[in-house]
Every structure is written in C-alpha cells, then in structure tokens.
C-alpha cells in the first residue's frame, strides 16, 4: 500500500457547485469541472482525512471494493496535486 498523506486545499482556488454534485475548480487561468465522484473526493480534501481515510469514505459511499476505491482515489488526488488544487501534508501536521 502507498504511503498515506493528507490532501489540503490550496489557498486561492475558487470552487463552486455546478449541479449533480459536480464541482468547478478555478486556478489562475484554467477552469476545471469534476464529475460527481470527483466532487465527493474534493469535498473531503479540507477535512484532515488522509488519502486512506478518503478512499474508505469512497468505498462506503459508493459500495465499491476497498482496493478499487484506494487506487481510484489516489489517482484522482494525484491529478488534483498536479493541477495545483491541493498540496500534500503529513498526517498529524497542521
């Protein structure tokens, strides 16, 4: 299993709901939209949950196997990280 980390929302990202639990995320110029599962994961990014904790919520909410939820959640969080919408924090950090 990969190492756990805590996704923190980047300061200065604009967010808004766009219907059907989708979320619009605005960087400095580029604007992105999640689908509803992406919106669910994003909603947990400011809660202090670790990547593993978020994956567990995904598994429970959508009734998918834990392994699939883990892989899918980590891939999406890596994409948010690459786009600059979140940053990595160590578990237990502030």
């Amino acid at each position: 299993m990969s190492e756990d980390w805590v996704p923190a929302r980047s300061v200065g990202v604009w967010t808004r709901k766009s219907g059907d639990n989708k979320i619009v995320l605005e960087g400095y110029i580029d604007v992105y939209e999640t689908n509803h599962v992406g919106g669910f994961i994003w909603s947990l990014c400011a809660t202090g949950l670790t990547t593993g904790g978020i994956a567990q919520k995904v598994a429970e909410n959508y009734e998918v196997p834990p392994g699939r939820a883990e892989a899918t959640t980590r891939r999406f969080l890596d994409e948010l990280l690459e786009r600059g919408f979140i940053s990595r924090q160590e578990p237990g950090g502030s």
Partner: protein
Amino acid sequence: MEFEEPTLTRLYGKGKEASQAQRETMNAARASLTAIPGLDDLLQAYPAFKDATCVFASGSLTEGWAHAKSDLDLFGIFSGTVAADSLDGLELIKVKTTTSDPTSWIALGEVGSYRADIEVWSEAQVDELIGRFTSTGADKYTVRPNPAERDLLYRLSKAVPLAGESWLVLRREALMDSTYGAWLAENQKADAEGLLEDVAGLLESGDAHSAVLAAHRGFIIALGSLLAAYGDYCPSQKWLYRRLETVRPDELTTADGWRVLIMDGCAADPAGWAERTARLIQRMLTGVELRAL
C-alpha cells in the same frame, strides 16, 4: 448515485498551468514583464475588441500594486448595445446595471501570461452614469450606482488607455469635474456617522466589545469617505493601506491609520480604544465636510 471513475475536465483556459513546471513558467513570465500586455495582445486573443470605441486597463497592475496572482483588468467600451454572441469564445458573466440598458458583461479570458477580466460596457451606459452627477448635483432622487458601476467609475478615474484615448480623456474629465466624489464621500460619511451613534450607545450600555467592532467598521468607512473627498474613488477595502499611503490626507497619517486598521491597543483596553477611534473618526469626517461637501 452510481460509482464512476472520478474525472477532472478542463472547461476554460488552454491548459497553460496544468503542471507545476508550467505554473512556474507562467509566474516567471509575468514577473519578468516590464509593461502590461497591449492592444495587439488583446486583439490577437479576442478580435471582437477591434470595434471598441475605447479599451483601457485599470487595476492593481496599472497602479503598481500587482502581486503574483493579480489579473489584468481591461475595459472595452462599445458604441452600441453589446450582444453576448459577439464575444464568442469568452466565458461571460452577466452583470445587472441601473442604467437604461440594464446589462453589462464581464468576459473572463487570458491575454499573454495573464488572466484577464474584461468588462464590456456601452458608451451610453458610461455617459448615463457620469450624467447623474453633473453640475446640478445628485440628490435623494438620484439612482445610486450599484457596486459594479461604482467600480467602473473608479476604474475610469485611473484608466490607462490602450485604444480610444480621446474618448477616455473627455469622460475622465467629466467624471472628475462632476459631483460624484462629493456624493461618494457624503454617502460613506452618513454610514460612518450611523456607526458612531452605535459606538456611543454601546459604550454607554457597557458593551465594549460590540463598540470596538462598530468603531472599527466605522473607521474603515470613514477612511473611504475621506479618500473619496481627495478624489480616490476606489471601492476596495483591501487596498486601504496602499491608498492611504498614496493619497496622504492631511487629516490622518499612514502610521496612525494603520494602527487603527490593525486595532493596535484594542485587546488591553477595548472601551478606551473604541472611544479614541470614535474621536478620530469625528475629526476625519470634519475634514470630509470641509473638503468635499
């Protein structure tokens, strides 16, 4: 809802900031610029603006106050009503106005390495707004400009033209010769005086904490009134320190203003701080009366 793979789809922008390396390149490009993008850059990105009567820039970039995430604030003034479909390809936000033509637009785009907020207004809307404050002066029946319109008038007062300079010069002169500044100062003065009354009542009733908050709010509004009396129509409180430092009104030093903004000394003596701030507000508003009204 059914599970599906989470996705992130780009709605607007060209993906120039999709990675950390790209974002650093964009930041470096902005930091290295010695001048803001010009008309050619705008027309290359958005040809519809070639028909504008006037295009001007106005904001933190032109004031020299820009930061790493500042956007480029541009304004396109057109001779007739502007149809949204003429601005095809831009993300558009509709803005309600109090003018006869009740709509203006904010187009979100990118010009060079900047995010650009491009406001689109008609000549008639600008003239109507300034016309409310010509020689006869505004009165209680004057339609109050809404926040978007007050922002436009401020931007006009500080505009740097990219095209249509002669149109801009005439409107800016009309605005600065109008009673708009006095109206703005008087309106904010009235709001500040309302808060002074609250401070007095709250102190009398022993509610020092609420008196502090009323005094702080009153000071910010009174400062806006004082700066308006000096010809600074900026509606943004974020820039109060910068504005105070630029205008340097006789009634308040920048250092004294900053101490009140950060509520220096308030924690140790809330009631005393609220009372001292209320006295300072009174002196500032007396200055507004002498200067603008």
